[in-house]
């Protein structure tokens, strides 16, 4: 698939063919920005179960997958959506109820884990974690790790610096690589072969993309190949990593997509309120996510004028003066 010349497909087809129950998945974005929400909702609609999910701080996407019951295990640094949810609500409830096994890392550790996967390495070192319970407490038990070959045998390993005190670093924490079965990211522009351009901060999307066995790219705009190749300094992902390209405008909504649209404060506030109560959350799921057949129908639930108020200002890349309280 990766060498094919045309990888453009529908979201439903990409999710059906690449996301299997119990597979290891990572999603791009950060808290309330550029989460691949259209793909998240399609996974929920297809009622995928038992996912092993990797994220760093991908707030909204993680919480919706957890809330919909798709996730069995979660490796994460941070489950929050900024001011809209200092701790993601469905995540918090699932953990407190013992419905979700979580393995905690820091943001840099998760970034390095994806980076190691992208670099083809089993681990990378850092000084972050020394002396903390992130090292001491394992969310995945030794037994689980020993019985599941898709997991590294250790959560983290501390070693003495083999170069003595070189760089004033007597000890290092080694973080194990992640190679997800599938990564899904949402970008501003891609071509039909899968070359992709992210505008604004890339978060850890590039590392997550290159670490994966399979990569699904959803994009705001499908552009001609030479459009991206004419300015290759601004592209981050070459087609050789990509399996599927899905053009899907507003594909990160209700999170933001820099230079296209802002996050939707109203949606995110309503989401948090719905999430606080099981019954209202089931209603949210049924009405907002499962009832629409696809992302277009989902978007059609919001009035057009409201969506228009989120459109990014061309100068700043966000919706200047947006009502956000």
């Amino acid at each position, binding site marked *: 698939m990766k060498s094919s010349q045309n990888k453009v497909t529908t979201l439903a087809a990409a999710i059906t063919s690449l996301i299997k129950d119990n597979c290891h998945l990572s999603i791009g974005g*950060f*808290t*309330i*920005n550029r989460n691949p929400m259209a793909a998240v909702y399609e996974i929920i609609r297809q009622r995928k179960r038992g996912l092993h999910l990797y994220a760093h701080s991908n707030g909204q996407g993680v919480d919706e997958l957890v809330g919909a019951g798709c996730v069995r295990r979660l490796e994460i*640094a*941070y*489950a*929050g*959506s*900024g*001011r*809209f949810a*200092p*701790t993601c609500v469905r*995540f*918090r409830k699932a*953990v*407190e109820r*013992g419905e979700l096994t979580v393995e*905690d890392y*820091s*943001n*840099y*550790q998760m*970034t*390095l884990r994806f*980076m190691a996967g992208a670099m083809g390495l089993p681990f990378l070192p*850092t*000084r*972050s*974690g020394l*002396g*903390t*319970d*992130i090292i001491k*407490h394992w*969310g995945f038990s030794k037994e689980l790790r020993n019985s599941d070959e898709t997991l590294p045998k250790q959560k983290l390993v501390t070693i003495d610096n083999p170069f003595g005190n070189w760089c*004033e*670093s*007597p*000890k*290092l924490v080694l973080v194990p690589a992640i190679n997800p079965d599938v990564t899904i990211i949402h970008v501003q522009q891609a071509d039909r072969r899968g070359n992709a351009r992210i505008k*604004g*901060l*890339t*978060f*850890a999307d*590039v590392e997550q993309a290159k670490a994966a066995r399979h990569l699904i790219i959803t994009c705001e705009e499908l552009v001609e190949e030479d459009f991206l190749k004419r300015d290759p300094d601004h592209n981050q992902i070459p087609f050789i990593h990509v399996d599927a390209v899905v053009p899907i405008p507003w594909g990160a909504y209700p999170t*933001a997509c*820099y*230079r296209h649209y*802002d996050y939707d*404060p109203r949606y995110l506030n309503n989401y948090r309120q719905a999430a606080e109560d099981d019954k209202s959350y089931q209603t949210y799921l049924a009405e907002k996510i499962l009832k629409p057949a696809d992302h277009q129908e989902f978007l059609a639930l919001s009035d057009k004028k409201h969506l228009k108020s989120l459109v990014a200002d061309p100068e*700043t*890349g*966000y919706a*200047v*003066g947006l009502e*956000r*309280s």
Partner: protein
Amino acid sequence: MTVRIENGYSRREMMTIAAAREIFDGEIVFCGTGISMLAAMAAKNISAPQSTIFFETGAIDSRLEEVPLAVADSRVMYLTAVNGGLAEAFATMQNRFTGSRVVGILGAAQIDIYGNLNSTVIGDYQQPDVRFSGSGGACDVASFVNRTIIFMQHEKRKFVEKLDYLTSPGWINGPGGRERIGLGPGGPETVITNLGILRFAKETKKMYLAACYPGVTPEEVQQKTGFALDLERAEAFPPPTNAELKILRERCDPQRLILN
């Protein structure tokens, strides 16, 4: 938190300005969501115009024209020096030459007398009573940078003898504690709460009360702290000036998205 006190400013405004005053001109300021971001904006606009606002998401020297509601908010991406990613941002802090110029502003659910922080769970890690967001970049920042400033709500259950989970390293267990576990010498310097300012004694690395806000007594602070505090050095804290308040309110958060 939204209660206004005697001379017309909220505790939250005072906390923000107290933190802003701790930032030196020329420093690189790591900030998270909410009040810490506002403190960095206030410092930049008031007393540290050459400071550089910096986010773990990869934005360096953001020109913040509206207050961001998350560190990934598109507002942090506008007119930056470089838009990178997490890998670059954390490397900047772990880097020996730039990390030593970074001041980090952190928050947490629990803090102990040595400034170690918990932002992961209350109760047992495997079956927590309360689950929080987790480290995010907090552990990384606390491990790498020159010094940190910590925001806390001052409550007994938050200032504890023993953390339920050590997410981010402070002074660990006293002098030399960081070095013994392999970390660099930088650590927590100031804790800013809704009651006052706490710092760490040079000799013991234990937290002490450095200042109380107007209307707060040292005894009240001790009462809301789960371990014994040295109260002897507590001074009165100079309240926000009109100029500080004006800039904070009019330039940093005119919509009161974080101040309220």
